[in-house]
């Protein structure tokens, strides 16, 4: 994986943050992630979305990325410069999309429970830890199955297929 260690400030979101909220459908006429990133969370209320800065880490509740299959949601998150998404759980299509486009994501209900808004986090994807620097506590990330690690290590599904050609 390109960035095995990610550091950033935690910005919290609630449960069921769906892909319509992450990137409203009206912007789906672009495939450019920088363009999509400009509209990241535009479907959410103004105060929640204006708090995000490049490098931040999204810390969300359960069922993150539910709804539409639009991969534009994972791209918009990347385009906004978000370095990682931690959630209690992910919707399945979003999970695949994030892996496929190389957006670091980790599932950890315990970490989500303890992380506070504004905490400094360090996530080591190869060691499998979420470290809350502010709270001085670490959480293990359940390891990805080998099958998915293959895709992640290659840098996404397309790269894996290119390697296999």
């Amino acid at each position: 994986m390109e960035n095995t260690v990610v550091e950033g400030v935690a910005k919290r979101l609630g449960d069921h943050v769906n892909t319509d909220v992450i990137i409203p459908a009206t912007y789906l006429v672009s495939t450019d992630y920088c363009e999509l990133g400009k509209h990241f969370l535009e479907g959410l209320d103004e105060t929640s979305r204006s708090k995000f800065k490049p490098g931040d880490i999204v810390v969300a509740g359960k069922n993150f990325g539910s709804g539409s299959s639009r991969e534009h949601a994972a791209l918009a998150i990347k385009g906004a410069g978000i370095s990682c998404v931690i959630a209690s759980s992910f919707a399945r299509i979003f999970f695949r999309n994030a892996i496929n486009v190389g957006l670091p994501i980790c599932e950890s209900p315990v970490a989500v429970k303890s992380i506070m808004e504004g905490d400094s986090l360090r996530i080591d994807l190869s060691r499998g830890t979420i470290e809350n620097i502010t709270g001085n506590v670490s959480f293990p990330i359940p390891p990805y199955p080998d099958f998915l690690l293959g895709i992640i290590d290659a840098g996404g599904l397309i790269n894996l297929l290119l390697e296999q050609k």
Partner: protein
Amino acid sequence: MSGSRVILREKAGRKSIKPGDFIEVPVDLVLANDVTAPLAIEEFGKLNMGVFNKEKIVLVLDHFTPNRDVASAEQCLFVREFANENEISHFYDGGNAGIEHVLLPEEGLISPGMIVVGGDSHTCTYGALGAFSTGMGSTDIAALMATGKTWFRVPEAINVVVNGKFRKWVGGKDLILYLIGKIGVDGATYYSLEFTGNGIENIDVEARLTIANMVVEAGAKNGLFPVDKKTIAYLSQLGVDSGEIAVEADEYGYSGVIELDISNLTPMVALPSLPSNVISVEEAPRVKLDQVVIGSCTNGRISDLREALEVISGMRVSKGLRLIVIPGSPRVYRQALNEGIIENFLEVGAVISPPTCGPCLGGHMGVLAAGEKALSTTNRNFVGRMGHIESEVYLCNPAVAAASALTGTITDPAEII
């Protein structure tokens, strides 16, 4: 016994598979639309490979068509050029296009036991016809267009045992809304939702399509119905052979069972802004509605239009309310014309839209302003789904939508006739 796993096991060519296994399977049909195909085609281009099978790729321009603006026109042009260059047999554009999940079954493209993967979350619709079908994102679709294969994590399954018979004005939409209300929007995440029970034979195939369509609103990977006399009759009228149906069990059983007696079900309404905020129509707040939409891949079929018209025929839409009726495909449109349904809706004061996703995703043809409220037969009522983030969407069946268009507020059809 999980039928979904039986299909996956057969296609994977394995003696046995168990929940949690990662398997690679060949896919029978790969679908994408004007939102997901452009990104998929870009990723596909990086692979420098040809398409795996031009007969097994389906491209439908349905979301922002007829094109809303220059950007959407260019996206469609990009897909059109790809379809032409690669001689994609099932390319639906212009007067041949309809809402993909209404269109594909009608075109005879779906048969039991198939694996269908679409770049659209509502690809799960085809489980109504006994196919294993599910949504994925554009990169997965790109890989599929090149290789014809994808990976799955073999799902656990939840069995929904349906008994009884719907009362008048209650249908598939109410069943699935009730179920989502009961288990929540992530109640079936990563699971197959498999419908069985004596009540299934009382549910028409179009209503099954409505039910399977919304299993993703409970987070499910796919939904599955048994193939019975109704399925076989429905498919044979479309010229589709149902083939041999695998009935053999797998040994892992169901992870959960939900019993549902549909005889007591009433029309349901999902309040903003989650499809699980479900209450019975009698308890629904009497909000003033600005728009009612009858259409979409959930309820844009001929039976839905007939049901709505039965409530509303000969009457007049409430003053100040916009009723938008969207036949889901050219075939539905033509049938509605032949039956006089279109004429009747015009008399009632409805706007008739061409087959398109349009307002369902806040794309065009009925976008909401700040503060506006819509009641809709579509499948999602998320914040801003149909337009401004301060607009609201309520979900219901076609009969409730029609009754409410008459009164201007959420209304039980039983109050009208």
